[in-house]
């Protein structure tokens, strides 16, 4: 069979070990009971943060708004348990900063907020795309894949652009993670419902579900569930990292390329994760905002599991639920091993984008010292964006941001393929991320200056 894939670069981490997914692949999703308190961060998405709108002592129900977005690129935050708000204070966030959290004492009743409204399919049919988009916004739905980009922003397409393809991301190319896989197996109907709702909002010609060929059962389940829904089609892709990255997925499924520096909408596509689709179905058909998600707790824990956790549960609670740490633990990662963020404290709390909690022992996590670049070019072959990572990294370390920009640093998707293949163990992605941050800062400063000059 001729499998779909993106054209350039890519790596196959842990290919001989089935991408590390055997640990949790066959484990059904289990509910993780929320602890006595949950601490819900007010920063849960890319873009603007949220402002807490509850006061200490206030009783809240599941799904009640506790944080209002401060800006368009942001989504509200909801209470994930019912109970009393006991504090609003700064706690350690997964991004390492001290940020405001709303701490709720769990009364264990999970009383659902009465203001939430479920819709039947008949009611949905009468809704306009804008009204549906508003439901998605109010439900606080952000990309469940890990980047946490607010979904309602993706769905508001500028008038001059035409979207004819909805691409659904079921690739789950990060090693170890099986959250999306279990979701596709166990809740395939929800995913399809979510796709139907998104199709009503965007009215594309087709919805393509991209799934890698190391998940044959998920492919089968989605094909079964998608039968009879016009326009929905499952694309089987070759297992290759980073297949689940937006631009690579579009290329694999549709053959189109997103122009440099542009958005998927410029290629007529919108990419949505399967987890997000299920969340959309939850929000519209059952009225439940994004208050929980499926997370894979795996690696060096006694019983690796796929769990459904409520937002605001701490990492340590999730790890204790999975039997605690096992052996010589070296690294704790929020997300997958390739793009996840390493944590130094397991007291941080699960956010909407926590697709996995990965504990690595000495066998997987080692910290070799970096040595000089050999100019071997392995990173150039591995880069899925066709960049020269070694050059960008070298300019970045010389703090020459203009040259880094000339080598198209801003096109980097930070997938980590270059660092993964580097024989000198150089921190290439980190160098490029610094260049991207500095180029972004310089561009913003220039824009601000121009604005001032224009006045």
């Amino acid at each position, binding site marked *: 069979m001729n499998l779909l894939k993106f054209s350039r670069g890519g790596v196959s981490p842990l290919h001989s070990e089935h991408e590390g997914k055997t640990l949790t692949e066959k484990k059904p999703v289990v509910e993780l009971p929320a602890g006595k308190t949950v601490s819900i961060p007010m920063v849960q998405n890319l873009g603007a943060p949220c402002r807490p709108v509850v006061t200490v002592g206030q009783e809240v129900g599941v799904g009640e708004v506790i944080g209002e977005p401060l800006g368009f690129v942001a989504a509200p935050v909801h209470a994930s348990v019912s109970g009393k708000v006991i504090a609003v204070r700064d706690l350690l966030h997964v991004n390492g900063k001290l940020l405001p959290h709303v701490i709720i004492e769990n009364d264990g009743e999970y009383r659902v907020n009465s203001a939430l409204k479920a819709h039947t399919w008949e009611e949905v049919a009468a809704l306009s795309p804008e009204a549906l988009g508003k439901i998605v916004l109010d439900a606080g739905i952000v990309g469940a894949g890990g980047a946490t980009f607010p979904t309602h922003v993706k769905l508001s397409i500028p008038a001059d652009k035409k979207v004819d393809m909805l691409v659904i991301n079921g690739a789950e190319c990060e090693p170890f993670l099986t959250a999306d896989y279990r979701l596709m197996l166990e809740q395939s109907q929800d995913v399809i419902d979510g796709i139907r709702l998104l199709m009503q909002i965007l009215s594309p010609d087709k919805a393509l579900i991209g799934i890698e060929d190391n998940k044959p059962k998920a492919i089968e389940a989605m094909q079964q569930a998608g039968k009879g829904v016009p326009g929905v089609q499952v694309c089987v892709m070759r297992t290759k990292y980073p297949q689940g990255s937006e631009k690579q997925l579009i290329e694999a499924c549709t053959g189109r390329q997103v122009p440099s520096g542009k958005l998927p909408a410029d290629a007529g596509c919108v990419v949505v994760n399967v987890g997000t689709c299920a969340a959309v179905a939850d929000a519209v058909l059952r009225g439940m905002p994004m208050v929980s998600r499926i997370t894979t707790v795996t690696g060096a824990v006694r019983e690796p599991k796929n769990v459904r956790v409520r937002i605001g549960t701490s990492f340590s609670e999730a790890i204790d639920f999975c039997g605690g740490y096992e052996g010589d633990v070296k690294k704790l990662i929020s997300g997958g091993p390739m793009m996840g963020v390493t944590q130094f404290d397991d007291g941080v709390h699960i956010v909407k984008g926590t697709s996995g909690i990965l504990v690595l022992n000495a066998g997987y996590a080692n910290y070799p010292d970096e040595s000089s670049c050999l100019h071997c070019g392995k990173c150039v072959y591995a880069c899925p964006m066709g960049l020269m990572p070694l050059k960008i990294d070298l300019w970045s370390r010389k703090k020459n941001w203009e040259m880094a920009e000339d080598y198209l640093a801003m096109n980097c998707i930070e997938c980590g393929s270059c660092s993964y293949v580097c024989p000198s163990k150089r921190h290439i992605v980190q160098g490029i991320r*610094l260049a991207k941050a500095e180029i972004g800062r310089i561009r913003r400063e220039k824009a601000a200056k121009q604005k001032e000059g224009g006045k």
Partner: protein
Amino acid sequence: MNIIIPAAAVGILGLLFGLLLGYAAKKFEVKADERVDQVRELLPGANCGGCGNPSCDAYAARLVEGVSGINECAVVSNENRAKIAAILGLETTAMERTVATVLCQGCGKNSPARYEYKGVQSCRSALLVVDGPKGCPQGCIGLGDCAAVCAFDAIKIIDGLPVIDENKCHACGTCVAACPRQVIRCLPYKRVARPLCRTQLPAKDARATCKTACIHCGMCARNCPQKAIKLENGQVIVDEALCTGCGVCVEKCPTKAIKLARD
């Protein structure tokens, strides 16, 4: 005898070209403002970049053009600045000597790292990895972005904290601009009190992250005989004009977060 003809030919050609060049030099002479050279001579010539120009030459040219101000160079001595002002017909007043000061005492002993950082050895890079290894969000990261840009070799990193050699420092300000956390500031050289902590954390959290953190108790402000210290928005601010360097605040501070210059 054969040597004479070629020697004469070369000699005559040389003479001709010499005359031609001499004529061209006079005819096509570019009139340069000689003041640029004079000003350039008086500038320190360290090319530190503190004024925002790439070199002292460039700054001298901009000075003469009238684009740059005379006080933009912090390195030049007051004497030379007065001479430059005389050349350009500008007015200047003597500037007080300042020196770059690190407003953080969170060395490895006082403020232990939250995690072992093994990435790119630069403060700005470390900040991209869960907000840097130091617990204090206003503290020094200690990977030496300031030392890397110092043109006078005045900064050394010792135990995760930059130590500034005040004899070498000319307060050019490049390290101030290079620090991603604004930990370094140019403060007066004279013996005044310097608040050495900028933390915004509440007292309990601040003490948990750093032994020498300011806990905003206000002891320094209350006890200052000159009323030179204020506590504004959780920051200790010293009015250097009023401070006499008596050292009462230093004695009263429970966490040793305020010190006199060169103590």
